């Protein structure tokens, strides 16, 4: 059932908040008072609750079912973390309070930084990036700053075709040029070709490991050595760190920088698109260039926030107004402490186990792109749909009717009609079996020529298939009230 927009169901005269009357007084607004009606509407509190409750019921979330989204790591979001983030001592403190009134907060940042550095075996960390893409920016800026410090003008960044779109976008954002890195038939970086591409203009490579085909770059140490020897740096996209946490430390692989997606690996909720958090670990070589602010031990005991760059340090700058996503730090730290060293290793193991289990389960019905052992996610392509009249999109939308969120589609670009599946470690065997069963059933239906159920999918969702093309052609980005009758009559 449709739920009207707040502008349709609300009224400019209604408010759901009781406030003291400001009364009459002499203002100090210098003649800039807002005089015109704004056009906002309000709802009473009962109707606000009802509006958003009804909207929420049109959403799918981890709480309602499995999310097989490759490279997105949608795992269980513990409620403990929500509770902790709301403690007044965390939620109700101001970023510019005197340092001695926020020692607990600084300790959270410091402790989380310590966990993340130890889990990666890296020298330093920048905590302030607001999301994964911001962390990438942080890492690449640190690389630019380091090159500048060395007095070098290197401008080329090598990125594989299978990389997340943020990688090339970020590189360009820092003034680099992007060149595509060749891959082999088996879905990994072509080491020989890479070495051939290295040269005095190469500033860095950006790799994801496990890569976005779900494969571990097994030559990664050789790659790192080659890049370093050529004078470049190694940026690792941390989106897939869930496969490694507690089990493999990227610092042991030779990387120079890697961002975390705390909202993926550390279960701070995705929230329908944020907030994320992108702390970025840095190697010894890059550490001096980390942006402000950071937390350090104060001389007289306790912790202090280092936020000024005036005293000649080499920090490359400041990435955001304050100190990063504190609300995500508390959640991530609670997550890490809950698992501990032993539990985190199990996270990686179960994530990889689950993906392999699903891969094996689907091999009969679908076509796997690469033969190699997958890590935490597995890539299928649309060869099994060839000649059925069903495409990846239809297949994915039909999965909605089976009660599941679709897998990642058409990414990475290296596979035809890619379907990238990542179950995560918080799914039970029963839930994996149900997923495999549903996928298999769909694959059989496609092969049996039941195209209608794919063309018309989803049939059992809150809405039928939406026309995204038409929406983009003439975008309507805000509500406009219908024209008054008089005007309409003209």
């Amino acid at each position, binding site marked *: 059932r449709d739920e009207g927009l707040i502008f349709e169901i609300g009224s400019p005269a209604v408010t759901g908040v009781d406030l003291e009357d400001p009364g009459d007084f002499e203002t100090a607004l210098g003649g800039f008072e807002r005089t015109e009606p704004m056009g906002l509407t309000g709802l009473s509190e009962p109707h606000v609750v009802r509006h958003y409750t009804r909207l929420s019921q049109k959403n799918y979330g981890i*709480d309602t079912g499995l999310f097989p989204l490759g490279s997105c790591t949608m795992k269980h979001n513990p409620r403990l973390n929500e509770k902790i983030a709301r403690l007044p001592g965390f939620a109700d403190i101001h970023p510019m309070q005197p340092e001695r009134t926020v020692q607990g907060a600084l300790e959270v940042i410091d402790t989380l930084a310590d966990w993340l550095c130890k889990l990666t075996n890296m020298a330093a960390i920048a905590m302030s990036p607001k999301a994964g893409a911001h962390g990438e920016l942080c890492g690449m800026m640190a690389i630019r700053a380091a090159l500048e410090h060395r007095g070098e003008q290197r401008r080329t960044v090598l990125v594989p075709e299978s990389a997340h779109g943020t990688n090339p976008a970020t590189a360009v954002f820092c003034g680099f040029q992007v060149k595509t890195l060749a891959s082999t038939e088996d879905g990994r970086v072509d080491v020989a070709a890479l070495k051939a591409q290295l040269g005095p203009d190469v500033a860095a490579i950006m790799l994801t490991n496990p890569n976005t085909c779900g494969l571990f770059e097994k030559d990664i140490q050789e790659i790192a050595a080659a890049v370093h020897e050529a004078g470049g740096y190694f940026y690792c996209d941390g989106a897939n760190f869930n496969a490694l946490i507690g089990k493999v430390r990227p610092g042991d692989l030779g990387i120079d920088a890697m961002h975390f997606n705390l909202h993926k690996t550390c279960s701070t909720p995705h929230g329908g698109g944020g907030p994320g958090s992108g702390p970025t670990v840095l190697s010894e070589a890059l550490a001096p260039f980390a942006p402000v602010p950071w937390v350090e031990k104060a001389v007289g005991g306790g912790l202090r926030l280092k936020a000024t760059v005036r005293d000649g340090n080499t920090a490359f700058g400041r990435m955001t*107004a304050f100190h990063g996503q504190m609300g995500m730090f508390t959640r991530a730290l609670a997550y890490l402490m809950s698992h501990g060293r032993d539990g985190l290793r199990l996270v990686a193991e179960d994530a990889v186990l689950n993906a392999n289990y699903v891969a094996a389960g689907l091999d009969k019905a679908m076509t796997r792109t690469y033969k190699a052992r997958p890590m935490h996610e597995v890539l299928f392509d649309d060869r099994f749909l060839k000649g059925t009249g069903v495409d990846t999109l239809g297949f994915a939308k039909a999965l909605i009717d089976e009660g599941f969120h679709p897998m990642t589609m058409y990414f990475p670009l290296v596979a035809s009609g890619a379907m990238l599946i990542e179950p995560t470690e918080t799914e039970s065997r029963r839930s994996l079996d149900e997923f495999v069963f549903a996928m298999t059933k769909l694959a059989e239906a496609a092969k049996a020529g039941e195209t209608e159920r794919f063309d018309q999918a989803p049939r059992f969702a809150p809405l039928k298939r939406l026309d995204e093309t038409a929406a983009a052609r003439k975008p309507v980005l805000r509500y406009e009230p219908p024209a008054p009758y008089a005007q309409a009559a003209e």
Partner: protein
Amino acid sequence: MRYLPHTQEDRREMLAALGVDHVDALFEDVPANALNADIDLPDHQSEMQVERAMARLAAKNVDAGSVPFFCGAGAYRHHVPATVDYVIQRGEFLTAYTPYQPEISQGTLQYLFEFQTQVATLLGTEVANASMWDGSTATAEAVLMARRITRRKKAVMAGGLHGHYADVVGTVTRFTDDAVTYLEPEPADPDAETQAIIDQIDDETSCVVVQSPNMFGHLLDLKRIAEAAHAKKALLIAVVTEVVSLGAITPPGDQGADIVVAEGQSLGNGLNFGGPYLGLFGTRQKYVRQMPGRVAGEARDADGRRGFVLTLSTREQHIRREKATSNICTNSGLCALAFTTHLSLLGEVGLRKLAMLNHRKAVELRDLLAGVPGVEVLNETFFNEFTLRLRRDAAYIVEALVERDVLGGVPVSRLLTKRDDVDELLLVAVTETVTRDDMETLARELREALA
């Protein structure tokens, strides 16, 4: 482990089904020298243990609600109705993915569409996006967007722009060939600030970035600046760090700003020690394809029913890769939900009342503090925050106030870290959460601390 559903037996059976006898076989591609390193971290803990440890850390902080509280400077303590927190905790919102599958994401998409409409209305712009990370990063994105539109390199930062925002713009443009000019702060003279901005605008200027109320609390005449900018075909980027002010003040869009960015934390979102916050971003319809960030748009489903989708994604990195308008991907979805829920509760009458209540309390505090010896109020105009020039170092006084259980404001020296001439300036903010008692306590303790 309470978050991991498998029993040891499950694991054994699943490994057996895969034909391997140890989980490490699944990590066969990892170099042996990098597998299973011992990590110096504690083992897992129960929920109770974690909760206690974290609560102990929380208790080491002085939370704003426990003392008279006057900090602002881009982060404001407003009362957030309990309804807002309930709504954002609903699992269907909290644990949803980015709404790329619109058929099962209408909850998120509809509130984003409503959010965009509210934001555009508030900012006085034609359109708005579905949120940015915060006000400072939105400001930097706006500068880059102005360059794309004007194809000019010179960006002018007003002297009243929040010091950290200016730093962020500086950082983002550090490795590009943008030429950013930073004007001198004028803590006591907004007219001088305005004139300096106008004087800087020339045929090379891509944009001027002007905050109003500015860092010191003064309201600027954006219309005059917009006219000067437009005369040179430059853009005016207006910055608002306290979005509640827009309930009382004519919005920057109506004053001629081409891009308006704001920090939206004040509505629906707590202080959270600085994050997550919520960047608001609005602009003209004609610039929409140069706008960074996600946008939701109206669409029809196969049955002709109205729905919403993420649209204009051809600007974005996941489609356009290195040619994207921005690398931003995850934004502040849940903070946007908090914002739009709070604003739906307030409605127009509530927001106006809230804004005027904030302003009235600020006027009241101004009157109280103006009578304190050693205090000079620098503002003639302000919304809910103004600047004091103190007889002594402001950071020192703030520390002295902590001893007296008052969080008395933000020293300007913390925002303009590279300057030596602002040490005696103190920013003092007031919201509806501040009581008359709190204000009198501040006045009394400030008087004593300055004595």
